[in-house]
C-alpha cells in the first residue's frame, strides 16, 4: 500500500523546508530580497533630504513612481524570474546530481508527491522572503498619506509577485525533472528569450511568462494555468523517467 499522496507530499514538504532553510542559497535569496529594501531606504533618505529631485523625461516624479520602477526593474524583471530559475531547476535536479533522490524513490510514496512536496516548500520559502521585502519597500517609499489610495494596487502587485514566483518555479521545476542540467537553458529563457520577445512585434511577447506578470484577470488565469500545467507535467515526467545517477 502506498502512503497517500497528501501525506507523502506533507512529509516531502517538511524535509525540503528543512533543506531550504539550511542552504546557503537561501541566504543569498534573503540578501537579494534585502537589497531593494536598502535601496528604498537610501532613496527615501535622499529624497527626504531634498538633495535630489527625481525626473524622468524632464518630469518630476514622486516616490510612488520610484516604487513602481523598483518593483518592475528589480522584482519582476530580476528577482522573480531569477529565483524561479535557480530554485525551480534545483528542486529535483540537485537531488539527482547529489544522488540523494534514491532515498526518496525507494519509499512507498507516489513519485509525484516528491515534486509536489518540494514545490510547496519552494513556494512557501520564496514567498515568505520576497513578498515581505516588497511590502517593506512600499512602506518605506510611499508617504503615509498616499498609502491608502495605493493600497489596492499594492496588494494586487504582491499577488502578482507571488503568482510569478509560483509560475516560474513550476515551469523550471518541470525543466529540472526533464533535463540533467537545466540551469543554463533556464537562464537563456529568462534573460535571453523573455528580454528579446518583449521587444519583438505582434504576439511574440505572449510566449513568455513575463508578459503575464500583471494584475488583470486574463494574466492571472494564464499564470495559474501555466503553474498547474507545469506541475502536472513535472509529476508525469518524474513518474515515467529513469534517473541515472552515475557521475
Amino acid at each position, binding site marked *: 500500500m502506498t502512503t497517500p499522496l497528501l501525506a507523502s507530499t506533507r512529509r516531502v514538504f517538511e524535509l525540503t523546508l528543512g533543506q531550504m532553510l539550511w542552504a*546557503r542559497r537561501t541566504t543569498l535569496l534573503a540578501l537579494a530580497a534585502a537589497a531593494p529594501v536598502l535601496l528604498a531606504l537610501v*532613496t527615501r533618505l535622499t529624497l527626504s533630504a531634498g538633495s*535630489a529631485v527625481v525626473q524622468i523625461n524632464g518630469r518630476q516624479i514622486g516616490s510612488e513612481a520610484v516604487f513602481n520602477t523598483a518593483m518592475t526593474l528589480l522584482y519582476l*524583471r530580476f528577482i522573480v524570474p531569477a529565483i524561479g530559475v535557480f530554485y525551480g531547476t534545483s528542486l529535483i535536479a540537485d537531488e539527482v546530481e547529489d544522488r540523494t533522490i534514491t532515498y526518496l524513490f525507494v519509499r512507498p510514496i507516489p513519485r509525484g508527491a516528491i515534486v509536489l512536496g518540494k514545490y510547496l516548500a519552494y513556494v512557501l520559502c520564496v514567498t515568505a522572503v520576497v513578498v515581505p521585502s516588497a511590502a517593506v519597500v512600499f512602506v518605506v517609499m510611499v508617504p503615509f498619506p498616499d498609502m491608502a489610495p495605493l493600497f489596492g494596487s499594492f496588494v494586487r502587485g504582491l499577488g502578482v509577485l507571488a503568482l510569478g514566483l509560483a509560475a516560474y518555479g513550476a515551469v523550471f521545476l518541470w525543466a529540472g525533472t526533464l533535463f540533467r542540467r537545466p540551469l543554463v537553458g533556464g537562464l537563456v529563457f529568462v534573460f535571453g528569450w523573455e528580454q528579446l520577445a518583449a521587444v519583438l512585434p505582434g504576439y511574440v511577447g505572449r510566449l513568455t511568462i513575463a508578459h503575464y506578470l500583471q494584475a488583470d484577470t486574463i494574466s492571472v488565469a494564464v499564470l495559474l494555468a501555466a503553474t498547474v500545467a507545469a506541475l502536472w507535467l513535472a509529476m508525469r515526467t518524474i513518474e515515467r523517467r529513469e534517473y541515472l545517477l552515475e557521475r
Partner: protein
Amino acid sequence: MPIHDQGYRRYAGERIVRARRWLVIARAGVIERLRERRFLALMLMAWLLFVVRAVQIYIGTTIVRASFFAPSEDTFHGFLNQQRLFVFFITIYAGAGLIANDRQANALQLYLSKPITRHDYIAGKMATLALFLIAVTWVPAMLLLALQVLFSGSLEFVSSHPRLVPAITITSLLQVALASMTMLALSSLSRSRRFAAMLYALVTIFAGAVERVLQTATGAAGWVLLSPQNTLAAITDALFGIEPDIPVTVAFIALVAVMAACVAVLERRVRAVDVVA
C-alpha cells in the same frame, strides 16, 4: 639479440617548459567543454548576431541605395554590447564549475600535488574560460571589420576610424578579463557550481538593476560604479568616442578594484588544504 626491458621506464622525453604548465590545464578544460553538444550549440548561437551584422555590412557596403546600413563605429560598439548577453551565458556554463567542481571532488589537492603552482592552476582555469569568451567578442568583432574591408575593397573605413581596432581589442579584453576573473573568484567560494552561478547572476544582472533604480531615484550617475558591467559599459562608451556619465579614470579604477578583489579571493581560496574549524 639484446632483450629489452619491459618494465616501467621513467619518462625521458622533453618536459614542458615551467612557464607553460598552465596550458595543460587550459587545454584539458577546453577539450572537455568542446565535447558537450549543448555548449557547442550555445557557442553557435552566440555567433548568430555576427551573421546578422555580416549581412548588414555586406548590404551597406555593396548596395549604394542601402547605404543607411553602412557600418559605423556604432555598429561595432553595438555588436560588442549585444554580445554581453552571450558572455553572461557562456561564463555561467563554462565558468561556474571551473573551481567549484574541483572543490567538490577534492581535486585541488591532486592538482597542487603535481609540479604546478596555484598560479598555474588559476591561469589555466582562467584561460579555459577566456578563450571561449574571446571567441564570442574579439574574434567576431574583428572578423566583421575584416569583412567590411573585404566587401568594400579598401582600407578607407579602418584608416578613417583609427580608434576602432584598439577600442574593439581593449573592450573585448576588459570584458573577458572582468567576466573570467569574477566567475573564477565566485566559483572558488563554493563547492556547488549552481551556487556560483547564482552569485554571478547577482553580481552581474542584479547589481545592474539596483544601479538603475538608484540612478533613477537620485539622479546621481555615480551609482553606476555599483555594477561592474555598467562600469565597463561606461569605459566602452569612452573608447568608442561617446561621452560617459562618469569620468573614465574613476570607472577604470573601480574596475581594477573589482579585479583586484577577485585576485585576492582566489589567492585565499585556491589552496591544497581546507582549514575546518
